[in-house]
């Protein structure tokens, strides 16, 4: 009896095919644009992991992306060789996330407030970094540069050999391997007890508490891991753009990754990846023309997706695919077979996910239309 659905399973056929495509790409085509698409995909993957499986939506995930970028730039300017800066770019966002996460989760705040706090954190970073123009704002040899940011820092080099820069195609491979690697790590996490408990927490936090799990510890842990991946993406982004500006912390940046994740599909890992790559491509194409405004299109897409495809494109497609399979089985006319097909679908429960799953947050305010009462006034039942 299989005790768990496929969230931890890797469909090796698809994965190896995708890996092959990614790794052979440079032979056939230019790598400059695909590199940033892969970086954005990693960023979205980090959010999708936390949001889709643990139910934690960070409205300011750009904070960790940006911290990764800035940490790399500052560190590499001071150190000169890129190995340690790369490590720091992953560690610093992780540590910051651990602190902020612990503060939030051990304080038992609700979803909405988590959204606000994470948003505020990225806003603080944005405002702070935008205001650091002038020579007095420097960390070591690195001037923070205010709104203009930090330009012209050394790119990643072969570890131990600072003269050999990894510009161009090697950068693409680094991005590709990072994405593939983080995908594997995510699947591995989800296959472990840890990942399954996260799903349980998403479904019913209170019950997990009553099963003996320390919910804040789990939440802080996944938040940290997600921030580390975002930081890695940010570091790679800095290498691709060859400049870091406060824009990485902006509301726009935070909104984009959420849009990519939602459109692609929360509740899957591949959804955010595909969403980021597709919409990232759209963004780049749009950026080169002025007929349709970027914001307008992004906004329109977000509204339409939320209204029409609440779970995102990939889950909708998966549901459609399974629905067709069920119809095929039903048409075969065997009642019992139909029963089995239904339970198979029920077995895949961890992917059946609603963005506003009830039972998750503790103090979330009741919504209108549901006869809800203010949390402060909920009657105490003896």
């Amino acid at each position, binding site marked *: *009896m299989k*005790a*768990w*659905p496929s969230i931890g399973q890797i469909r090796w056929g698809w994965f190896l095919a995708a890996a092959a495509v990614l790794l052979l790409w440079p032979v056939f085509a230019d790598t400059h644009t695909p590199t940033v698409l892969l970086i954005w995909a990693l960023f979205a993957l980090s959010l999708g992991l936390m949001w889709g499986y643990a139910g934690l939506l960070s409205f300011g995930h750009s904070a960790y992306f940006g911290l990764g970028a800035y940490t790399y730039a500052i560190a590499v300017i001071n150190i000169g060789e890129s190995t340690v800066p790369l490590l720091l770019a992953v560690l610093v966002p992780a540590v910051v996330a651990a602190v902020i996460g612990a503060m939030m989760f051990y304080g038992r705040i609700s979803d909405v407030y988590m959204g606000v706090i994470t948003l505020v954190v990225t806003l603080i970073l944005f405002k702070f970094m935008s205001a650091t123009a002038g020579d007095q704002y420097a960390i070591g040899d690195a001037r923070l540069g205010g709104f203009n940011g930090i330009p012209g820092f050394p790119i990643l080099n072969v570890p131990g050999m600072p003269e050999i820069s990894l510009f161009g195609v090697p950068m693409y491979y680094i991005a590709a391997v990072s994405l593939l690697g983080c995908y594997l790590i995510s699947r591995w996490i989800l296959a472990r*007890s840890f990942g*399954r*408990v996260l*799903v*349980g927490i*998403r*479904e*019913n936090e*209170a*019950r*997990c*508490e*009553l*099963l*003996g*799990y*320390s*919910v804040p510890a789990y939440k802080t842990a996944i938040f940290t891991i997600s921030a580390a991946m975002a930081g890695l993406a940010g570091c790679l982004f800095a290498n691709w753009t060859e400049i870091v500006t406060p824009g990485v912390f902006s509301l726009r940046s935070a909104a984009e990754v959420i849009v990519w994740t939602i459109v692609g599909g929360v509740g899957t890992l591949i959804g955010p990846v595909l969403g980021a790559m597709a919409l990232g491509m759209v963004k780049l194409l749009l950026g080169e023309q002025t007929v349709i405004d970027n914001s307008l299109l992004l906004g329109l897409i977000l509204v339409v997706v939320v209204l029409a495809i609440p779970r995102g494109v990939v889950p909708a497609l998966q549901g459609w695919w399974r629905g067709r399979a069920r119809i095929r089985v039903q048409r075969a006319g065997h009642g019992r077979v139909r029963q089995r097909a239904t*339970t198979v679908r*029920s*077995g895949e*429960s*961890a992917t*059946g*996910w*609603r963005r506003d*799953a009830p*039972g998750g947050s503790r103090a979330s305010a009741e919504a209108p239309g549901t006869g809800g009462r203010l949390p402060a006034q909920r009657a*105490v*039942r*003896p």
Partner: protein
Amino acid sequence: MSDAVVETIDLTMRFGGVTAVDHVNFTLRERELRCLIGPNGAGKSTFFKCLTGQYRLTSANGRVFIRGADVVGMRPHEVVRMGVGIKTQVPSVMNGLTVTENLWLAARRAHGWARSTAEVQRVIDEVGLADIARRQVGELAHGQRQMVEIGIVLAQDPWLVLLDEPAAGITGAEVERLVVLIRQINQSASVVVVDHDMEFVRMLGSTITVFHQGAVLTEGLAPQVLADARVREVYIGNRTQ
């Protein structure tokens, strides 16, 4: 104090002006089965929540010992880790997951990965969940979800089981099945049951503690408690001969 599984001394819980639990001294011995009854608002569920840490206690609330350990100030997950299983008043299960997955999460925390699957199967057999094992819990009927939650409690292998209204919403044969199950659980764990269903309580045949307005009104075996005029008075509200 020596062989008490649960002991509360002067347990008091107030919400604003309402005293929900009023200086309750309660003792439960090892392997005992006890029922808590009382009208709505009597403080039974609040009492439970004080035991489990769902209401955060301070020394001002009195003292609570579970198997001799002072649990005042503990969080629910810490209390549970000691070996306490809790079924809440409103079924609290993971609706988006299957029965098996729910049980697995419960079993996993108490047992290692290797044993969890076997434990899940054991509970499925014991509680009789084989028919619905692969169904999504959110789709089940209320009575079935109650049983699933009891299964979740059992999967943790607790030595103290707190059941808040396990018979709510189920009738007839299911109630009998529940009685048998509870007696079975009682073979290896101490059990406290809160419920309103007097038939159910009578069938369990244990010592009954009657709550009223946050305090213990009386305590005893079913026949004598149910014949007690004061008990009838608090339930029905007027004097009887």
